[in-house]
């Protein structure tokens, strides 16, 4: 976890717009000694930040290390609430696990858990999520909306819209949503979202949104069984992308959508979601634990439930399924 002092120093650099900040000024802002400032600058250098120090002028950050540490995400973050508390670890079993623990301990809304590697990343029904070191965004976000648990699934669709918008903001790549919240580029999965709830019967304590985004993997970074179904932003774009910039964009988009949702309800989100959806109007198969349903995806309900028109014209509501797109 970032210390308060470190947060204040990073915020000071955020406000300085690349200008030099004197050691004296930084010490005043952070409420510490100039020696402590110097020590923090040394720590940041040790973490890979390139810091220019000029006599009589002070310090400025000229290059960030390309990690997803709290310091690097905070530097340039424009949100008010989301990502204002960051818990970074180099390697974890799963960011969801840590998020569950922190949420139970009372972590504030917007707390972000992020790691450079997950050794036991997981997806739906306990499936493994491949999350090798330094290549992707492996993160969990804690929200505490004042909503009944029945509304919580809508937040997973908000997450999907935020991911599509953030990918476009940073990479200019166009991606699409496969119900409910897989993000695809050219029918290959680039982002998966899995959400878990801590709730009592009538209120949400915490909602933990896990997002896995393939960013800088090469084709050879994927295990052979994923060649056909997974891709990364780097493979699609032909160049690497800063993961910290993507996280910043994701948090900013998410916060905007979340505020719209809390003030105006789900309808504006639904319209956005449908505009990015790949499966609407197409023949799909919904694979559930109790069987396959075939039909044409008609859209989603006001709650985000998938409407599937079956052969006989019956509209079936799908709450849980893997969606397979039928070949044209």
């Amino acid at each position, binding site marked *: 976890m970032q210390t308060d002092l470190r947060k204040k120093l990073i915020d000071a650099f955020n406000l300085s717009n690349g200008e030099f900040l004197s050691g004296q000024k930084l010490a005043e802002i952070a409420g510490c000694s100039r020696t402590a400032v110097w020590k923090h600058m040394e720590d940041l250098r040790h973490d890979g930040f390139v810091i220019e120090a000029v006599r009589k002028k002070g310090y400025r950050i000229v290059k960030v290390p390309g990690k997803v540490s709290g310091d690097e995400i905070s530097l340039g973050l424009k949100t008010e609430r989301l990502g204002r508390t960051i818990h970074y670890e180099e390697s974890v079993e799963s960011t969801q696990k840590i998020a569950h623990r922190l949420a139970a301990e009372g972590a504030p809304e917007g707390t972000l858990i992020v790691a450079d590697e997950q050794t036991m990343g997981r997806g739906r029904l306990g499936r493994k999520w491949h999350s090798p070191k330094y290549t992707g965004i492996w993160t969990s976000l804690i929200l505490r909306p004042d909503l009944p648990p029945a509304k*919580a699934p809508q937040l997973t669709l908000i997450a999907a819209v935020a991911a599509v918008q953030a990918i476009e903001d940073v990479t200019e790549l166009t991606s699409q949503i496969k119900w409910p919240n897989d993000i695809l580029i050219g029918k290959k999965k680039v982002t998966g979202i899995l959400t878990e709830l801590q709730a*009592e019967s009538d209120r949400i304590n915490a909602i933990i949104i896990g997002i896995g985004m393939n960013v800088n993997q090469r084709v050879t970074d994927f295990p052979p069984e994923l060649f056909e179904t997974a891709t990364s932003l780097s493979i699609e774009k032909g160049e690497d992308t800063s993961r910290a910039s993507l996280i910043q964009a994701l948090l900013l988009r998410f916060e905007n959508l979340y505020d719209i949702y809390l003030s105006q309800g789900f309808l504006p989100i639904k319209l956005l979601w449908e505009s990015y959806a790949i499966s609407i109007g197409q023949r799909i198969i919904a694979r559930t634990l*109790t069987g396959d349903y075939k039909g044409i995806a008609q859209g989603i309900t006001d709650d985000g439930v998938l409407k599937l028109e079956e052969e006989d014209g019956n509209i079936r509501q799908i*709450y*849980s399924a893997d969606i397979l797109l039928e070949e044209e």
Partner: protein
Amino acid sequence: MLKVQEIRELIKLIDQSTIDEFSYEVEGVKVKMKKGANMQTVQAPVNTVSVETVQPAAVQTPAPVQTPAVAVAAPVQEQKKEEVKDTANLHKITSPMVGTFYQSPTPDADAYVKAGSKVKKDSIVCIVEAMKLFNEIEAEIDGEIVEVLVKDGQLVEYGQPLFLVKPE
């Protein structure tokens, strides 16, 4: 042929009405519904319980299959009567949202609980999933699971009873 959805709607309607008995015939398929006659004799506080028990039975028909109406209607009646007898002193764990009921964390794993399992307030008893949001449901009471009212993979409604628990 009546669809399961339609039968479900009918049961709901009848349940909410003051009608005690109902029969309906279309294209050779007959549906007969009767509210438990002995329910009225049960004391007032328990009355609310008996109304709720109608729901699990109604929805227990596996939603996807277009089962002939008759086959569905019959078990509804029997089960209702049985439950009314037993559930008076039992606690119900209900679903906080519409979604798919999973008895275990992954398809290969053992069920969280089964009939006879002892549970604490914070024991996880199942998962309800909708739109890749996984809600681990806690028992919220100390006791023993008497009956699991739904099947793995089944769609459950908001407020639908999932387990009967004998409180300790």
